[in-house]
């Protein structure tokens, strides 16, 4: 390589620049800064403190029931306020079953909506459909419950359960008489309620995938659907899992709509057609009229169990996202 006969460009010597400020050295600059830092630290610590206070309060109020029943509370099924015997197993199973079933129903639908809106919808259709989906999230829970009682359950009874029974009647999941209020109705209502949350977040995640990913897939010969399935979705999988967990969290805590259609029965069974109960519904139903201290304490213990389950689900979600996102470039940014 021939050297060009040019003068080297003048470069400002390092010494002419002021020394780079050291951040640590600024910490003790003046009282105002110290106050600012202290105030921000206080506010930041407020939320974990609130969480700890909530947990502490629940624990303190649930203590009589904890001491009386011990771990048996989690696996016995009898809920008898008159005899003073309380077991939360049907509620725990009902909460988990209805939420997971709602997730199974909602995730394909929500992902489908998100993919449609992000990739395939014509430009004029995107905003209106996105707006309508987000509108679903704005509908109050009680209105969903009313719709469930007066519209969904008759529809299920007339049009959905007979074919379901014909197709799956041999499984333990579709057994027994269908009286309307059931685990199935509860799960469907929950699914309708969590679709907008999952869809909105998933759509944002998919829109944030850089176009280079799609272009690369198409350049390698992929069809449009293949490009989405092999390049876009794996890139955003951390965010999609996060969206799903968001929906699950909403489903676990939903109270009013569920209590109106789930039948409110302390029973565990395999069939989707029989009535069930959830923890949030039980607390909402029985709290104001609980006369004995043990009953009240048992309800607080149910609240504590729900609290712990929600924390566990969120912790698991964090772990899952971290592991899933490790391979992708978006991993560190998706969180």
């Amino acid at each position: 390589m021939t050297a060009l006969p040019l003068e080297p460009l003048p470069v400002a010597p390092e010494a002419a620049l002021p020394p780079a400020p050291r951040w640590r050295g600024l910490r003790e600059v003046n009282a105002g800064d110290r106050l600012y830092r202290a105030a921000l630290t206080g506010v930041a610590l407020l939320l974990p403190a609130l969480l700890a206070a909530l947990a502490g309060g629940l624990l303190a109020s649930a203590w009589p029931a904890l001491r009386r029943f011990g771990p048996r509370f989690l696996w016995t099924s009898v809920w008898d306020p008159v005899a003073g015997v309380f077991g939360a197993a049907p509620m725990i199973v009902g909460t988990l079953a209805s939420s997971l079933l709602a997730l199974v129903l909602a995730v394909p639908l929500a992902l489908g909506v998100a993919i449609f809106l992000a990739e395939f919808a014509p430009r004029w259709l995107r905003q209106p459909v996105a707006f309508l989906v987000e509108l679903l999230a704005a509908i109050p829970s009680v209105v969903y419950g009313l719709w469930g009682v007066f519209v969904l359950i008759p529809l299920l009874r007339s049009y959905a359960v007979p074919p379901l029974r014909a197709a799956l009647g041999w499984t333990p999941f579709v057994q027994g008489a269908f009286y309307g209020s059931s685990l199935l109705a509860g799960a469907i209502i929950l699914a309708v309620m969590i679709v907008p949350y999952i869809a909105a977040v998933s759509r944002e995640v998919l829109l944030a995938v850089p176009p280079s990913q799609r272009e690369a897939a198409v350049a390698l010969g992929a069809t449009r659907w293949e490009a989405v399935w092999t390049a876009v979705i794996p890139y955003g999988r951390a965010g999609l899992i996060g969206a799903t967990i968001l929906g699950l969290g909403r489903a676990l805590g939903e109270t009013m709509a569920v209590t109106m259609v789930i039948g409110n029965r302390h029973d565990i069974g395999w069939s989707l057609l029989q009535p069930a109960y959830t923890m949030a519904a039980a607390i909402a139903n029985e709290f104001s009229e609980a006369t004995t201290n043990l009953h009240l304490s048992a309800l607080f213990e149910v609240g504590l169990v729900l609290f712990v389950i929600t924390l566990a689900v969120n912790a698991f979600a964090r772990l899952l996202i971290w592991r899933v996102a490790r391979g992708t470039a978006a991993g560190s940014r998706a969180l």
Partner: protein
Amino acid sequence: MKPVALLVLTAALLVPRPGPAQTTLTGAGATFPNIIYQDWILTYNKAHPDVRLNYQSIGSGGGIRQFSDGTVDFGASDAPMTDSAIAAIGGNVLHIPTVLGGDVATYNLPGVTATLRFTPDLLADIFLGRVTKWSDARVAAVNPGVRLPDQDIVVVHRSDGSGTTFIWTDYLSKVSPEWAQRVGRGTSVNWPVGLGGKGNEGVTALVKQTPGALGYVELGYALANGLPAASIRNKAGTFVAPTLESITAAAASAMRAMGPNTDFRVSITDPEGARAYPIASFTWLLLHRQYRDAEKARALVAFVWWAVTDGQARAGPLGYAPLPRELRPWIEAQLKAITADGKPVWPTAAR
């Protein structure tokens, strides 16, 4: 100078003028009588503007708790306080009945327009899950001439704790030894069968939406919404329909078992009496025997006496059965026992 003058003038106008001395009374408790209590409070305040009452219907359990803690001046409950709860506050409570309520068995049988009839043991066995079909021989035996479909009986009960459930389970405990032993009585029980609806509205919605359903709702609710109501056979053997008169008759019949020194902590389900409806109950106001503030105690006693005398006329139109007139002297005896600072409050309250 001008803005200052304006400021001073505004301040002078905003200074509150001293008015007549006001007594404020707070109460909390049962949801069932909330409508009549709010009506009474409004009406009483118009006639006595110096007395302000405030009632929050947070539920009987909450009412008893707040009354026991002294947070409110009076409580309200659909079920009487238990002995242990009374002992916990040193016996410092009086139960004053205010109105009567009752439970109605409502059902949904498409194609059946006649009023159905039930016997006590049949009702108990349906709610125990022993009788499961409308076409059962026992149901047909009590309803001759009614063509009953071969449908499942879908039992509907309350999922939330309530006085309505207390009345229903109290009645079933009296008429069915199996129910008393297996389930018992309470505002919230371990139901052997059935779907749970939240509130009277929830039960009504479930019954209306489920063919073959049988549930129980409060009388006022059933009257206001025109729900089908079954007739129940009472102790005397007559099938009685739930009406305001039959429920008042239940209280009148139960008086024979009470006696003038009663503390009113009695259940009046399944009473004697030919015209008595068997599933009725008092709802009570809880007052302390000893109050610290004489002024408040006087105002409270005056209000309660007005409610159980003049206020009874307002109960019927709102769907509550009024107390029988014969009960008034007994209630008066109870109210006379209320003291403040050791001195009885009654003589100065009666007007």
